[in-house]
């Protein structure tokens, strides 16, 4: 099956600043992919490249096997909700659905209608007067009713309060199932992604830190409590193990260790631990 996004040595520079460097990833179809990283890590750049809003400075990117945004047919296959879910503030909710219907040959009017009704959006309401959560839902509705094969959401929940955030993600899971689309969503908060993703990419400092299925990542990462002042526990690790990051917390020092084999005395790391460890490690190296 064609991967939804495949990149090779992809890079993007703005003048002298490198936003994304040597990015090589392969995202299989049918996943809900979380793209996580601190602010300025290059998440929006990678997603902008994937939907063809920006052109790469170097390397190669293919989305669903084709060059992004190269044709109307390719555009029809990818739904995109940009950061802050921009909508036309002067157009009503109904106008946005009409826009979607006029501009997308595969438009699913029934789906759009059902979603708007279920979300309780007033079709006559101007989009500029919607709340942040409603606006995000409207933008997602327009992107979803295109009935593409891939949905790309850039920080869809960043501006939402915790309740709207949970509702949005729950709703996303539900209709991803219903439509059978692949989803890539970014966030700087791992907690949001941990709820919904089955594939994680950690981006930090413009580079890919880890990329893999959540189950695989969790299986090979361990949390090791380091007692005492020395690194005795680390010295005793199997030869194949790699310390990702060590951190001092209130209850002592802990290390996140990557190792395919079981690590004696360690507990399983959860997804938040893993993602955070890679981001912190990158931060520490800068």
């Amino acid at each position, binding site marked *: 099956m064609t991967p939804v996004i495949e990149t090779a040595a992809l890079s993007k520079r*703005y003048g002298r600043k490198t936003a994304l460097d040597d990015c090589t990833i392969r995202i299989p179809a049918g996943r809900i992919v979380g793209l996580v990283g601190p602010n300025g890590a290059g998440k*929006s750049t990678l997603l*902008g490249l994937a*939907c063809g*809003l*920006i*052109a790469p400075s170097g390397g190669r990117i293919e989305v669903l096997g084709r060059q992004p*945004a190269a*044709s*109307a*047919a390719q*555009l*029809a296959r*990818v*739904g*995109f909700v*940009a950061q*802050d879910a*921009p*909508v*036309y*503030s*002067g*157009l009503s909710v109904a*106008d946005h659905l*009409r*826009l*979607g219907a*006029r*501009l*997308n*040959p*595969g438009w699913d009017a029934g789906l759009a209608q059902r979603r708007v009704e279920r979300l309780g959006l007033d079709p006559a309401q101007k989009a500029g007067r919607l709340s942040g959560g409603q606006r995000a839902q409207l*933008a997602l509705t*327009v*992107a979803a009713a*295109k009935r593409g094969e891939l949905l790309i959401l850039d920080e869809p929940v960043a501006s939402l309060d915790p309740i709207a955030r949970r509702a949005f993600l729950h709703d996303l899971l539900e209709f991803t199932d219903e439509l059978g689309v692949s989803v890539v969503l970014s966030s700087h908060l791992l907690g949001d992604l941990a709820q919904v993703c089955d594939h994680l990419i950690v981006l930090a400092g413009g580079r890919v830190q880890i990329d893999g299925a959540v189950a695989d990542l969790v299986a090979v990462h361990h949390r090791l409590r380091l007692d005492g002042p020395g690194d005795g526990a680390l010295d005793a690790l199997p030869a194949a193990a790699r310390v990702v990051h060590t951190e001092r917390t209130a209850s002592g020092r802990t290390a996140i260790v990557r190792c395919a084999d079981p690590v004696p005395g360690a507990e399983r790391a959860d997804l938040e631990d893993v993602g955070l460890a890679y981001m912190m490690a990158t931060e520490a190296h800068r």
Partner: protein
Amino acid sequence: MIWLTWRQFRTQAFVAVAGLVVVGAYLVYLGLRIRHDYTAGIVNCLPSDCSTTRRTFSERYEGPVALAGALLIGVPGLIGIFWGAPLAARELETKTDRLVWNQSVTRVRWLAVKLAVLGAAAIAVTGAYSLLLTWSASRYDQFAGDRFAAMNFAARNVTPLGYAAFAFALGTVVGLLVRRTVASMAIVAGVFAVVQIVVPAVARDHFMPPVTTNVAFAADVMEHADGFGMNPTSAHLIGYTMPGTWPMQGVSQVYNADGTPYTAAQARECMKGDPAEDMACTAEQNLHFSYTYQPGHRYWPFQWIETAAYTVLAALLAAFGLWWVRRRITLR
């Protein structure tokens, strides 16, 4: 795409149509009055009153016609500012480009449809205004006989169509590059104003090489000039305009038949006190002067050259805009 273009443009379209209706009604009223007064005061004037009625006619309509002309020159500017500049800049500024460019319509097609629909509307509105004003002011223009004057040339017949196409394309491209609505509007206003000053001042008279001819100093020559200056070694005719032509010079030195400069001493020979007799006397001195000008029959070639040049410029700008959205635009 056409639906969306119309949906986003309809407010501006209503404003333009409402403005056109108001101005159009006034121009029809003005045109009818000018026609009436022209027939009554110019064509059928009593010989004793003719000079008075001519002056009244000129004074009464000079202002309104000039004002309507100035407004017509401003219309393409307004179109560039209020239709062109926000077209892309507002989308980029409010980030709705990321919404609309991710529907199943390529950016090139998005811009092409917008340019075509709004560009056609810009040309139609300006064209309708120009048609109305050209009709409305036709008797006055005939009377004033100065259709090459910068304000008249740019506010009659087909040139406004070229300006409209140019200003709209300019606005769109500036908006694409600057990405800020208000800044784009200001830049478009500035650039359009400069172009409208520079082209008549330095470019238009070079469309075709001017013609130079020797004109005999006839008795009626002073009716077409602003003044006459002389000194012991030379004499000059100031601001002479041969009827219907566009003068390329402000001052013409006057010569005798044998080519020697005409002088103040010679001029004094004819100064007896009665203007008509003095002029007849001067005419008999067999003088001539050289006159460089664009002939009146070049009015239409000049109209078409200027319109075509602006249209080509608009097309180049549009092509650049399409290339830009395809290749260069980047999300920040």
